[in-house]
């Protein structure tokens, strides 16, 4: 799998993401500057976490207008895989590559703590090393992760099985207490219709090494590596 990480000004988890991808694939991902315009020969494009353009105005809004976005759009239209984590998820929604928007956390505070995610379906390149219904732990670190979409959109996402992960208790219960940022229907991550574009708020890339507290995020990267090996 050949992976690229897009670097927007103000992004700060590109290193974390590169470490996780290198662990899984055995080689360093390509870092692509936001002013570049081509993504040739890439299987997976990752938009990492951080504060692109300071998250001023709205999180991800300015990055969504970057020159590289046209290439990302083309890559997605061709059926290429795209993953946006945290700020990357916000950028994908701002760019219209994923539906909905990420509002300020309901508590109006930045949340930096571990959360638990329930895998809603495992038959995707991203989740194939998890079981459907499995719960895994991931650090979250965001001020604007409160997923919002209108009811029709939410119904469609659920109806088409496009919810990727939900905030859950460690036992897998989907309830209000587990929904730290107030997201609609506990949604932590969603897919585009072709299941090849994923956006999620928490950071599986920060939990791929026992030394840093666990390996709960590792199956995501191992799964991607295996699923896209043939690509």
């Amino acid at each position, binding site marked *: 799998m050949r992976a690229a990480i897009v670097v927007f000004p103000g992004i*700060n988890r590109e290193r974390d993401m590169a470490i996780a991808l290198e662990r899984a694939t055995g080689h360093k991902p390509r870092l692509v500057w936001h002013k570049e315009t081509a993504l040739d020969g890439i299987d997976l494009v990752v938009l990492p976490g951080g504060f692109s353009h300071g998250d001023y105005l709205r999180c991800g809004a300015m990055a969504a207008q970057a020159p590289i976005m046209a290439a990302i759009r083309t890559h997605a239209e061709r059926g290429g895989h795209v993953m946006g984590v945290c700020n990357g998820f916000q950028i994908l929604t701002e760019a219209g590559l994923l539906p909905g928007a990420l509002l300020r956390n309901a508590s109006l505070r930045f949340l930096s703590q571990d959360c638990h995610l329930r895998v809603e379906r495992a038959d995707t390149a991203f989740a194939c090393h998890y079981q459907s219904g499995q719960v895994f732990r991931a650090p979250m670190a965001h001020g604007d992760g409160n997923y919002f979409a209108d009811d029709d959109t939410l119904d469609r996402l659920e109806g088409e099985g496009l919810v990727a992960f939900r905030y859950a208790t460690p036992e897998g219960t989907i309830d209000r207490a587990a929904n730290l940022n107030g997201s609609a229907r506990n949604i932590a991550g969603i897919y585009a219709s072709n299941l090849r574009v994923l956006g999620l708020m928490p950071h599986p890339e920060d939990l791929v090494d026992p030394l840093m*507290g666990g390996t709960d995020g590792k199956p995501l990267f191992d799964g991607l590596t295996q699923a896209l090996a043939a690509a």
Partner: protein
Amino acid sequence: MAKKINQALAREFGLSADEYQRVLDIMGRTPSLTELGVFSVMWSEHCSYKSSRVWLKTLPTKAPWVIHGPGENAGVVDIGDGMAAVFKMESHNHPSFIEPYQGAATGVGGILRDVFTMGARPVANLNALRFGDPSLPRTKRVVDGVVRGIGGYGNCVGVPTVGGEINFHPSYNGNPLVNAMTVGVLDKTRIFLSAAAGIGNPVVYVGSKTGRDGIHGATMASAEFAADSGEKRPTVQVGDPFVEKLLIEACLELMATDAIVAIQDMGAAGLTSSSVEMAGKGGVGIQLDLDAVPQRETDMTAYEMMLSESQERMLMVLRPDRQDLARAIFDKWDLDFAVIGHITDTGRIVVTHKGITEADIPLDPLAEQAPLYHRPTVETPKPASLGPVADPVGIVPALLKLIGCPDLCSRAWVTNQYDSTVGGQTVKRPGAADAAVVKLDGFNRALAITTDCTPRYVAADPEMGGMQAVAETWRNLTAVGARPLAITDNMNFGNPEKPEIMGQFAAAIRGMSKACIALDYPVVSGNVSLYNETEGKGILPTPAIGGLGVLDDAHDAIGIGLKPGMGLVLIGTIRGHLGQSLWLREIAGQEAGAPPPVDLAAERSIGDFVRGRILAGAVQACHDISDGGLLVAIAEMAMAGNTSVSLEAAPGEIAPHAWWFGEDQGCYIVSVLDPSAFIVEATVADLPTRLIGHTQASGTGGAGLKFKDGATISMQDLRAEHDRFFPEWMN
């Protein structure tokens, strides 16, 4: 409009009559407004250390592993593998009182710049915070703003905030302390310094544009607050963490080339102090043309530009043939880049604006004749030692109250607002261990970092308190298995013109020095913040210490969380010292007695032994005894590991409350699989130990804490008390 330059104006600028006379002597004429401004900020307490310098000079600053001690933007120590750690702590107390969010945010920004200006990538932030009485609405607003500000800045720049400390005391009601610390790492052969060189070399300004921000911030940080401090509000600066992030990346990118001759952040007193210090250190002169300075506002005067404290700016001296390369890098990152002058051989700083020479000052006298005061000192009288104090409530209620009190309760509400994992190298997050542990990307090696100070000890006995603060950081680094290397300090005190305050300062330095020498643990950087008083009332003297240590292998680091199936051993001697303890304050309602004495020889031998056992893999968890004493430490270990503990009885010769809550120094609790073996080895080394309990058997649930006499506290009750304060207070 033009102000008349005279002694009255000099006084407004914070210069005494003597100091102004010295300016006149150096200049041989009446200075211009800009010149007077330069003298006043360079000779302010904040920049000149005029009251503290004589004492700071006595601190031990050398060790074989120290690469740069005090005098540079930050201290640098060798950490092995060809790498060095760069670190410093700095205060932003006054700005944080005026505008808590921006004050704290720009404090973080400022200390980050001191570290990356040396070529290091910042890898960790910490903060030492002191607030007033929590029952005051103002305290709540300040805490909320400061915590948001630290998070708002640190999270955005992508440097993990991994540790720190928070205390409450009414003495900080009108004067909170916000001390921020940054640690960076670099290749030890690629350290950048600030001494300018190369006659004719361009002086380059990069970063944000200059506005009328914080003019006279440095002198504000050097003056006591009066009731009308609202008047000084326009000096507040707004931080732009996004630009800071770009500046970090752009500077590090440029530092990978050979373009930079010297570099210095524009901190307090902005363009003035950075240009004066760079030229002064290099023994050269500097010519600045202010027309070239990127400006955010119109019609700025030379005086305003020289004194502005606009954030996120740096000054560099470049090799002339690398100017274009440097410009291209800053263009890429959308940052201003302007050649604003050049290095000269005149030994003077010459500032021109719109064709007029606005300042022309000889640099040597500006530095050498800077005021230096041997202020009178009065020793703090030794406190009477505390007689026996009866236990009014019993052990269990006292524990529940203590672990819920503002000084000991869970800090999760605070730390959950700080991104502690960004960078992917955080081995021990806040609350997991006595020190934060951050791995070096690409190496097995890790840094351990902590901040500590117990101001109530320092107030009661400044020398012992200074010693204790240093020893506690050393102990906390040891408790994770790290080899302590060096400290940074932030001396927060009251008005130095009062002999009692200067006496506290001198004694604290004395105590710190003794500890540094005994522990081979020198001071490599620091900061002094004086005049922390409101209407004549001083804060508790607070020499905050930031300690740094190294682990050759991050895998060796341990935390405080207990696991089942272990024995708990106390190493060190508990005599039941209740003087100045939290138990005494929270349970008996007294702030009295002498602080617990520190025995530096015992500290060293016990610490070295504990570290040795940790590195040998014999210790599962370790926690030092500090605020709240033995039982609080055990409760914290139990909660952190979600593992119950059965306790042995207190020894008969010490009153139970003194045993459980005394704050004796130099003690650790270790969790070990084989307590007898540990005790034997300690005994062979002639160190005092005592078995104090066992964790629940593997696979069984437990009662939380279970005492020998059958009393228990459930884990839920412990947690409920521990977790309550901040969320209830803030919501």
